[in-house]
């Protein structure tokens, strides 16, 4: 269970995120969406501890995120970012196993877990001997997902995970990722700016604008019951892009 209560952030007097509260239960996928600068990335970075909020608290399974608990609690977060965020000097396998290795897991246990995850993300095991630069974008992203899941975290956070992929690869990966989330029953928080992708994954969509949640609900709510003009315009813009065949 991930709980945020009243977290806020401002830089140089400019409010980036107004006090925001959010609770995500295991098995639930929440998607944060909104235009650039709306605060969705800041919110994700607060959850994962890259940004410390000016006020409010983050709780993970009943434990509060503080400077003292952060390093320990991080192994219960899995983090996937655009293009995988893989370390170029390590092979796919070493990228996946880096934390397990750091935590001194024995090699057999690492081996078993890597094989399990490769099967889960449908990646041939031998491909993991390659370096990131020797893989395709989709392969890199699958390795990134393996790395995020390696320590069996309670929460998986994804920052524009499909951003760098072409549409066909993207569609494949979306389906695989959704199947994985359905099976693993984890807390999932994803940032995207594509309403279609949000609708595909989300149990709940949070549309942010100017540092606050403008509307929360299902894709159906957004299309049929937009909360205000801003939401209406955001939806319309997304539709136009999709109709025009532009990949947002």
């Amino acid at each position: 269970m991930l709980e945020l209560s009243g977290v806020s952030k401002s830089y140089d007097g400019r409010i980036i995120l107004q006090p925001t509260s959010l609770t995500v239960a295991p098995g639930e996928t929440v998607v944060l969406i909104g235009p650039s600068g709306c605060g969705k990335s800041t919110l994700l970075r607060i959850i994962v501890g890259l940004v410390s909020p000016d006020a409010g608290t983050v709780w993970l399974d009943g434990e509060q995120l503080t400077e003292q608990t952060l390093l320990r609690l991080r192994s219960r977060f899995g983090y996937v970012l655009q293009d995988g965020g893989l370390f170029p000097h390590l092979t796919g396998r070493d990228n996946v196993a880096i934390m397990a290795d750091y935590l001194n897991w024995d090699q057999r246990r690492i081996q078993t877990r890597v094989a399990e995850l490769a099967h889960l993300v449908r990646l041939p095991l031998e491909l993991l001997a390659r370096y990131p630069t020797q893989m395709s974008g989709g392969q890199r992203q699958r390795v990134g997902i393996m790395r995020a899941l390696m320590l069996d975290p309670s929460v998986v956070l994804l920052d524009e995970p499909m951003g760098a992929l072409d549409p066909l690869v993207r569609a494949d990966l979306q389906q695989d990722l959704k199947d994985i989330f359905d099976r693993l029953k984890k807390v999932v928080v994803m940032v995207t700016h594509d309403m279609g992708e949000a609708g595909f994954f989300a149990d709940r969509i949070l549309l942010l604008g100017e540092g606050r949640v403008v509307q929360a609900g299902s894709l159906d709510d957004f299309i049929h019951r937009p909360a205000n003009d801003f939401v209406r315009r955001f939806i319309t813009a997304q539709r136009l892009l999709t109709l025009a065949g532009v990949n947002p």
Partner: protein
Amino acid sequence: MRSSLILAVLHLSGLPAFTAETVVVGSKAFTESVVLGEIIRQLLEVRGIRAEHKAELGGTPVVYNGLKAGTISVYVEYTGTLMQELLADKRPTNEQEVRARLAEQNLVLGQRLGFINNYEIGVTRELARTRRLKKLSDLEQHPDLNIALSSEFLGRKDGWPLIKARYGLPQVALGMNHETAMAGLVRGKNDVTDLYSTDSEIAQYDLVKLEDDRGIMPVYHAVYLYRADLPTKAVEVLKELEGKIDTQLMLRLNANVRINRVSETVVAAEFLNETFGLNLPTGESRWGRLASGMVSATWQHLLLVIVSLALSVAVAIPLGILAYTRPRLGTLILATVGVIQTIPSMALLVFVIPVLGLGLWPALAALLLYSLLPIVRNTYQGLKDIPLALKESAVVIGLSRQARLWRIELPLASRSILVGIKTAAVINVGTATIGAIIGAGGYGQPILTGIRLDDIPMILSGAIPAALMALAMQGLFAVVEPLVVPKGLRVS
């Protein structure tokens, strides 16, 4: 192998423990001083005292400070230099006062060797005739003359500044190596230069000395200068030479080296054989000397470059990391290593002599300081340039600060760090040649001697191997790179 390396280091460094019974003779970087150093060394040895000659130690400040620091025990100085330059701030008016001032620093002024070597201002006979030059005051009427002086004379209180002020001369002088200035005079590249009155070139090229018509120039008697702790036995031997070398003889000894191209060692041996009825060896092949010199120079040069580089890597990489992790401290670190780089090497060497003496250690210290900048900078920049997404990935997956540095950041910066080390290595090969000025040997030694003796093969015997060593360093790093830079950063 390792023990011989250590021995070599200790030997070159002149550690007191090893030199307790060895008398170290010093000399300045001009022929006369080197010949006298050789004479003293050989006479000490033939009298059963272990002696070593640290030859061609840059200028007066290097040798004098080396004597005060205890790295050398004795050298030949000139009374004028002592009064007007070294002790000028204490204003001694005669030799008695000089002796007293030196005694305060535990130094002893010995007796005169017998010759005078004054500074003179000289021109070619041709120029003296066409411009009617006889006296120093005549120079005032010829502001167009090119004046090239030995660097030391150019700056010394008893040198050019004194003459320029007292004679009101308008010319601006250039500074260079003494022998180069003289060669320039003979070849017509410059019109006026300073001469030492014992220079053999004066007679050889029929140079004209301009009269000091206002009588301002000091007299320079050659005298021993030694440490008060020099063993009595050695002092006794030095006394044997007192009054034995008159000005004519010194001129002849200098001419033998500079005109007849006999080595200082042989000239000194011949003099001692003649004067004391000794039987010191005087035969030596020029090429054999060149070859054996190259072997020891290579060894010394490698030692300088490799040891200084290893020390620098050990200091500079942590400094670069510190600069990256503590930005405010980092600004200070980067500024400091930048400033160090701008200190002229000669000045830096003279600064470190009082602390580290002469020889290997000050040279290593200087090279260490000069190689900091490229390594610190490249370490810092390499770490800083890692994409933010990768740095954040490393944070978010839960690695500690230290683990991030070792597992992620340093490997990603490895190529940049290696380039910094390579730059430092190549620069070091070049810079190490200045080590010869303070007695650290290396390829600078034949270069320095070759310039002094106008001996091209000897200059090349230092310059070519130095260039080859720089190339070899480049090659070495091509071999090292795959061992240091992770494979993932090299594949595409």
